[in-house]
């Protein structure tokens, strides 16, 4: 019911929306909950377990009951709080967790089963017959559980992420936060003022308080304008600070205002990472309910929420309101309602000593013992000293006291501190470095006290920042003492709810205690108390008070559960913004990328890089045809392949040679300038880290290549070796992977291709196998290396990256004219398997130099990283699995990588496992399949037969063990 003349809504702007298919109208400035309440809709949701009808209980993000699904189709967003959903034209909201309708929900039958569905009942049953758990019980439980539903479509809402930095982050824009921000800003601090709500003011927007002689809400608006005009203040409304992390880092979720005209593609929100030197937590306090029987009936609301609906949105929560409280703040509800002309049925105050200045039926020392009604409250039972009474009312406004919003102060693990006077937990001091707490969050409950503490903490923060705060006047406002009689539960007939969302009642907590779930953590986990979407914001303190009573302990001795981020739930799409699709990880493209795509090559991911799989030609319908052709092209003519993705590390300095001796197992210091050597690097644990070539460009200048996969790790490793292990050596390493484009030119006609592009052929003729030297290509300084990964005459030519694209074109065009062309990763892999060369398929991280037959490369004469660990007996054991070649010799001719090896007659079970296949391919050169693998004692078993078994693909192949390397094992072709 809307009350004329009340509220901060814009009555000139009507907004139409729908709820469960019914059309409704509200005003601009309404929330979904306020508009529904104004239209007389009280039931907005169903509870999780018993499917009880529920109405809005609060007016904030802590709402446990009024959770709805917004939007349709892919845009559907489940579990939205009606209490914070800003109304906008065309909003479509639906209730959830009910079938077939909110009014008639079949699973409400669960409520009748409540005696059997107590806390933890499912741990005690559903065990027989065993097969029924997954087939019958669990699917039924899963269907009944859950709240809203995802659309099943990729999320449509677009979110962003951003960083912000400030001197002072003020969390909460109520009276305390406003004063803290002002005080620090006037001292010159860069201030971010973050407020979860759509406007600044906090409780001032919901009350009839005066500040500085004017309406509190107007004062807040004036302050907002004043702060907004300061260049060093950034006001972020609709921004909930979600977590406090280390080093003054905070997470915050900013929601975009709905229906921003002219910005249809605006993001739904932004997840902020705020780095703040200091913080003031001014997050206010949350009113808590009292657990009296049937306190979950629609119409039972927090007293503060009743005032908020009235004062902020001009909505009377009901026609006749019974106010029930145990503290002074309940009383102002009576005043506000009466002033607005809403009937107050009674004021029930649990405190016997309470007095009342309002013209209302007043029951001091009384309690509400129950509610009655079909779809909502119709009558309220109270117990007074004189006995039971039944009072007609459709709304119960409850105040069980206030819980300071301590969450962020506890996110780094500290526990809040119990305060007997306030009957509440207060934030621990200094728990989050640099954070101070102000206002109601610190237990200051009057407006004046909030303003004062905000001012003091703002000034304190400025001082901590080394700033001098000028005097700021404290605006006059009402003050008052806070008096409370702790009241957690009321005895009576019927269940009394603690956690409304998860349907946890006082009885559940008492049962848990009886079953020895006495630790607050046990109670929580056994009953699911506090595990619902409100994370116990409404119920945790009450529940642990009930537990304390049930176990005969005090509340502080009972303790709290852990406060964890996020303070309000954050969409995965917000915190994971940018993760969807291609932007999940950077895409790295070689300089030949465009040319490669133009040639129709399918690209595959190689780490972050893209590389061509093969270059299909006309008539080729299967990758194998292209691959086989490319292999033979290299073996018989010439092929060109972009190898720029390999890591390149430039090492220079007088001690560069000795430094590389330390990095590699083999000696690089003996390498002459102008020569290249294959090298092996170990991790400190003695296993192979990477392999590649090392070229000595000059006496004090080397170029190290790494594999594509290990480029980053090797760079980090080299930096560690240089800076930490051998800091005294004068050598520096820097990654130049991006700076050079490099192409392999391989095959009998490689020289003919290069002769065409090099400015001076002489360099080519003089270059011996494993030599390197400077060359020029079209006047551009380039480097030529005579190395081969294919076993053919091979070169790699490197030019500054900006010339890569044109050099690739030149090389490929020339190669094509000679019967060759570009080749891709498939052919590259076949070529190297034919030669028995290893890649990370073999040096996969668990193998040693010994395992791959390179123990001879571990120099005895010098130190190198990994040498001590590699000498461990277990890493040099002859029984280890060693690299071998394999070729099928039986009827089955396939070899599948990942197959395991067994003795020919052995059963293929774990106990008989002898090794596995790492790589395999059809060799067009040899005309049959070959593979590489690791076999126990493999090097001693050349010529033996083993069986390769692949259970997964149903394959078993008899193979002969061979030395790895089939094509030109003597290497004459690559040297020639």
């Amino acid at each position, binding site marked *: 019911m809307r009350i004329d003349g009340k509220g901060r809504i814009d009555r000139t702007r009507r907004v139409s929306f729908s709820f469960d298919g019914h059309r409704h109208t509200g005003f601009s400035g309404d929330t979904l909950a306020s508009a529904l309440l104004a239209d007389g809709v009280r039931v907005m949701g169903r509870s999780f377990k018993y499917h009880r009808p529920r109405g809005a209980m609060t007016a904030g993000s802590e709402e446990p009951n009024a959770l709805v699904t917004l939007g349709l189709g892919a845009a559907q967003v489940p579990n939205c709080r009606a209490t914070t959903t800003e109304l906008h034209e065309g909003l479509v909201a639906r209730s959830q967790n009910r079938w077939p309708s909110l009014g008639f929900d079949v699973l409400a039958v669960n409520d009748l089963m409540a005696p059997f569905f107590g806390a933890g009942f499912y741990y005690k049953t559903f065990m027989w017959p065993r097969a029924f758990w997954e087939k019958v019980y669990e699917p039924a439980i899963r269907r009944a559980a859950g709240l809203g539903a995802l659309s099943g479509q990729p999320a449509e809402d677009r979110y962003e992420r951003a960083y912000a930095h400030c001197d002072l982050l003020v969390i909460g824009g109520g009276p305390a936060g406003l004063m803290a921000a002002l005080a620090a800003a006037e001292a010159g601090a860069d201030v971010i003022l973050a407020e979860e709500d759509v406007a600044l003011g906090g409780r001032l927007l919901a009350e009839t308080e005066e500040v500085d002689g004017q309406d509190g809400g107007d004062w807040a608006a004036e302050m907002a304008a004043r702060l907004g005009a300061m260049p060093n203040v950034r006001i972020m409304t609709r921004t909930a600070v979600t977590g406090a992390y*280390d080093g003054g880092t905070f997470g915050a979720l900013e929601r975009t205002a709905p229906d921003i005209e002219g910005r249809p593609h605006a993001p739904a929100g932004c997840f902020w990472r705020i780095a703040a030197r200091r913080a003031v937590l001014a997050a206010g306090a949350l009113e808590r309910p009292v657990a009296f029987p049937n306190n979950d009936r629609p119409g039972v609301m927090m007293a503060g929420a009743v005032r908020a609906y009235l004062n902020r949105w001009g909505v009377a929560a009901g026609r006749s309101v019974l106010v029930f409280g145990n503290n002074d703040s309940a009383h102002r509800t009576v005043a506000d309602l009466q002033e607005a002309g809403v009937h107050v049925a009674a004021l029930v105050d649990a405190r016997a000593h309470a007095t009342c200045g309002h013209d209302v039926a007043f029951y001091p020392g009384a309690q509400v013992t129950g509610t009655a009604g079909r779809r909502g409250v119709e009558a309220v039972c109270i117990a007074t000293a004189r006995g039971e009474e039944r009072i007609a009312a459709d709304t119960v406004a409850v105040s069980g006291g206030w819980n300071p919003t301590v969450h962020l102060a506890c996110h780094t693990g500290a526990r809040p501190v119990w305060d007997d006077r306030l009957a509440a937990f207060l934030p621990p001091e200094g728990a989050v470095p640099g954070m101070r707490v102000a206002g109601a969050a610190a237990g200051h409950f009057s407006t004046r006290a909030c303003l004062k503490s905000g001012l003091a903490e703002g000034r304190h923060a400025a001082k901590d920042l080394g700033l001098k705060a000028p005097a700021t006047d404290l605006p006059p406002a009402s003050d008052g003492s806070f008096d409370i009689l702790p009241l957690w539960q009321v005895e009576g007939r019927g269940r009394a709810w603690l956690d409304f969302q998860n349907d946890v009642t006082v009885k559940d907590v008492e049962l848990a205690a009886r079953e020895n779930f006495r630790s607050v953590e046990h109670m929580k986990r056994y009953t699911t108390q506090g595990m619902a979407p409100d994370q116990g914001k409404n119920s945790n303190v009450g529940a642990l008070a009930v537990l304390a009573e049930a176990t005969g302990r005090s509340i502080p001795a009972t303790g709290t559960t852990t406060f964890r981020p996020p303070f309000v739930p954050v969409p995965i799409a917000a915190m994971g913004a940018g993760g969807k699709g291609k932007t999940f990880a950077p895409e790295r493209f070689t300089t030949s990328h465009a040319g490669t795509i133009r040639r129709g090559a399918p690209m595959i991911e190689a780490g972050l890089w893209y590389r061509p799989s093969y270059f299909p030609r006309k008539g080729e319908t299967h990758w194998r045809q292209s691959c086989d052709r490319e292999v033979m092209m290299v073996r018989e003519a010439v092929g060109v392949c972009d190898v720029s993705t390999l890591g390149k590390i430039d090492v220079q300095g007088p001690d560069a040679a000795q430094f590389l001796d330390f990095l590699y197992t083999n000696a690089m210091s003996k390498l002459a300038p102008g020569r290249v050597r294959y090298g092996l690097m170990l991790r400190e644990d003695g296993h192979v880290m990477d392999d590649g070539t090392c070229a000595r460009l000059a006496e004090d200048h080397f170029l190290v290549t790494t594999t594509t996969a290990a480029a980053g790790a090797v760079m*980090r490793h080299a*930096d*560690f070796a240089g800076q930490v292990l051998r800091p005294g050596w004068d050598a520096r390493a820097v990654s130049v992977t991006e700076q050079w484009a490099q192409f392999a030119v391989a095959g009998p006609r490689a020289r003919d291709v290069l002769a065409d592009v090099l400015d001076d052929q002489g360099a080519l003729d003089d270059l011996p196998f494993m030599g390197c030297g400077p060359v020029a290509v079209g006047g551009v300084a380039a480097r030529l290396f005579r190395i081969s990964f294919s076993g053919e005459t091979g070169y790699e030519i490197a030019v500054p990256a900006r010339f890569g694209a044109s050099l690739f074109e030149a090389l490929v065009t020339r190669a094509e004219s000679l019967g060759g062309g570009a080749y891709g990763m498939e052919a590259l892999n076949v070529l190297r398997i034919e030669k028995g060369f290893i890649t990370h398929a073999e040096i996969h991280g668990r193998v040693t130099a010994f395992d791959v037959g390179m123990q001879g490369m571990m120099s005895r004469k010098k130190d190198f990283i990994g040498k001590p660990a590699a000498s461990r007996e277990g890493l040099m054991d002859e029984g280890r699995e060693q690299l071998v070649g394999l070729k099928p010799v039986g009827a089955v001719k396939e070899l599948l990588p990942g197959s395991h090896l067994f003795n020919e007659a052995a059963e293929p079970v774990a106990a008989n496992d002898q090794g596995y296949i790492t790589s395999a391919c059809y060799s067009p050169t040899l005309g049959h399949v070959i593979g590489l693998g690791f076999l126990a004692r493999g090097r001693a078993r050349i010529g033996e037969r083993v069986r390769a078994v692949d259970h997964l693909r149903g394959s078993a192949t008899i193979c002969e063990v061979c030395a790895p390397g089939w094509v030109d094992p003597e290497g004459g072709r690559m040297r020639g």
Partner: protein
Amino acid sequence: MRIPCPLCGMRDLREFSVRGAALPEPEGAAWSAAWDDYLHNRDNPAGESREFWYHGQGCGAWLVVTRDTVTHEIADVVLAGAEAGA
């Protein structure tokens, strides 16, 4: 977490990677109990810890960070090279 890099200033955690306890490399190239300790065994303190960190997304410096493993508070950051006496 934010780490004051001696070369770059205060930077976010995501620019760094950590290697673990900052231990001196043992003498000798033969496997020994000292090497086993260096590679494997740890005090693993719940409290102040000296660790090697790498500013890989920044200046590429290896750092020795003195940090509390319970509170994550950082007490001191120096260049590992300077620490090693270079």
